[in-house]
């Protein structure tokens, strides 16, 4: 695998550490979805695996936002969960601030490391315990890590957090069902910020929200990033939202990264055929009359991925090599892209 050198966007403050905050190398996660043992023996079925994440490598410099886009089944939600430790990787490593997040770090260090990264979930209705008061919901990380010694300081801190996301301190006595979707998502953000993390993984945080509410939440997230120097991994299927929030964008297809580039570069000069297809397929509200290539086919079944390059059945540039050999992510023309056609200059 060629060495991947991250190229931080020029808009960042010049004085920053040389080492990226988050580094992911050859990350893999395979799920065993075989039928139960008895069925397999009786019906002579083979074991089945889903390679949800298949050799992912990227890095995120401090203070920037990397967005991962892709359609359903591409594995981006799995990546989010791998990064925060909800799943253990089958292979590969995740390094946070230079330290590995697997068994090689001691348990105490790992716990301290986990405090510095948090997650925001997609569903504003399922991500808050309906039976808990907001005070307890936001206070849980504070209590768990011993950040507040008594009730008054807990209440004060929760009030502060609520105000930082645009809600009122008095809202801490209420229950989640008394809030709208957008407000609940803000409570989720407040909870994620409780331990003062440096890194936030956001799994489709605005997909379930209306457009005007989405605008409010995205504005808050950007403001918080500026004021606290946060680093985001932003997962989404909505390219317009990604355009608004990201510094760099990674495009995923069937568990693999097909292109990683700066935002400007990706949207103005996409290289990989899948990226081009995605950009063309997004319904264009401004109807700029952009020429569009028709979209073909559907995402294949992850249980039975195509050989070689996973995109070759739908690719207008596919050739024999694409069917046999899986392309590696390599630096070409200033971006990272995994495509034989681009490498050979055929696009």
């Amino acid at each position, binding site marked *: 695998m060629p060495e991947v050198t991250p190229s931080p966007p020029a808009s960042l403050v010049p004085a920053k550490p040389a080492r990226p905050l988050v580094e992911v190398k050859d990350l893999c996660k395979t799920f065993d979805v075989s039928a139960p043992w008895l069925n397999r023996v009786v019906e002579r079925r083979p074991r089945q695996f889903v390679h949800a994440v298949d050799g992912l490598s990227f890095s995120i410099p401090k203070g920037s936002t990397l967005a991962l886009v892709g359609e359903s089944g591409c594995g981006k939600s799995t990546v989010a969960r791998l990064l925060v430790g*909800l799943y253990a990787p089958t292979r590969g490593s995740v390094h946070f601030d230079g330290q590995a997040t697997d068994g090689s770090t001691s348990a105490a260090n790992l716990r301290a490391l986990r405090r510095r990264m948090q997650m925001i*979930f997609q569903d504003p209705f399922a*991500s808050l315990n309906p039976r808990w008061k907001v005070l307890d919901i936001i206070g849980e990380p504070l209590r768990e890590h011993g950040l507040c010694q008594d009730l008054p300081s807990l209440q004060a801190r929760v009030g502060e957090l609520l105000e930082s996301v645009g809600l009122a301190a008095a809202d801490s006595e209420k229950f989640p069902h008394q809030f709208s979707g957008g*407000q609940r998502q803000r409570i989720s953000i407040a909870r994620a910020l409780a331990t003062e993390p440096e890194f936030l993984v956001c799994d489709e945080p605005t997909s379930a929200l209306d457009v005007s509410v989405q605008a409010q939440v995205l504005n808050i997230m950007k403001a918080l990033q500026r004021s606290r120097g946060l680093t985001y991994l932003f997962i989404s299927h909505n390219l317009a939202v990604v355009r608004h929030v990201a510094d760099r964008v990674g495009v995923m297809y069937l568990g693999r990264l097909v292109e990683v580039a700066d935002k400007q570069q990706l949207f103005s000069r996409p290289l990989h055929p899948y990226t081009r297809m995605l950009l063309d397929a997004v319904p264009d509200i401004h109807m700029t009359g952009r020429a569009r290539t028709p979209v073909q086919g559907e995402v294949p079944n992850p249980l039975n991925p195509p050989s070689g390059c996973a995109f070759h059945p739908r690719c207008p540039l596919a050739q024999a090599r694409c069917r046999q050999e899986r392309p590696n992510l390599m630096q070409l023309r200033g971006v990272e892209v995994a495509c034989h056609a681009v490498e050979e200059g055929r696009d």
Partner: protein
Amino acid sequence: MTPAPSVTSTAAPSAIARFLDSDIWFSFKSSPMAIVAAVIAALCLFCSLFAPWVSPHNPFDLASLNLSDARLPPAWLEGGSSKYLLGTDDQGRDLLSALFYGARISLLVGLASVAVSLVVGVGLGLLSGFVGGKTDAFIMRVCDVMLSFPSILVALLIDGVGRAIFPQADERLAFGVLIVAISLSGWVQYARTVRGSTLVERNKEYVQAARVVGVAPLRIMFKHVLPNVMGPVLVLATIQVAAAILTEATLSFLGVGVPPTSPSLGTLIRVGNDFLFSGEWWITVFPGLMLVLIALSVNLLGDWLRDALNPRLR
């Protein structure tokens, strides 16, 4: 630009105010059946809890019994006396008082067994659903095995074993064995119900959020998941109270339930059974009616609760 605060203007109401405004209370107020059932159940509960103060006589005080008053019919029949409203049994005990004392025993055993079943069943169900894997498989197999035995037989078996181990035991131990016997035949329902709900809740994002924060799994199980799976358990418990009381009555009727010195409604029915054919029907019928009344009102309450808690029917 700081986002404008969208302040929710009303202050949070107190718990009582929330309850009175809730859908459950409204549903209760608008269901005549639920109100009647609740009133009857409350009356029975009150009479049995305060039996010593509510009963006109103490039927277990041997000194106050008068054999010449034995087998008197109810007050409205010929030969009856207003001193014994529902008549007396073969030992001169006032039936009305015996009913209250008997109901007390029945309710005590019923409620206690449900409480034990609940704790065991909910605990095992939570564990099974949350941990999954081999633990889950093992507990579910145990449930399957338990379900293949009729509950009365299980109770009989445990009771018999208990008596064999502790032949000279005093009364309280006998009660304990009886309660354990009845609860062991009832916990499976809770375990299965809770396991199903736990499997659903476990995958929800608030549980994942707690894991990301670093909360220990046991704590997540009890503090996060348990409050959200208790709904169906309450309905089940209400209905199981009636079932437990009936099981106890059956066991006492068979002679292997409560000790004869503290007769429950079942014992009274058994005692009265012998006199049925000599025309003294009241000795067995009134305890029977009381049993039916308690079981029916609790069942009706359980029915209402299940419909009230079902979001689709609201």
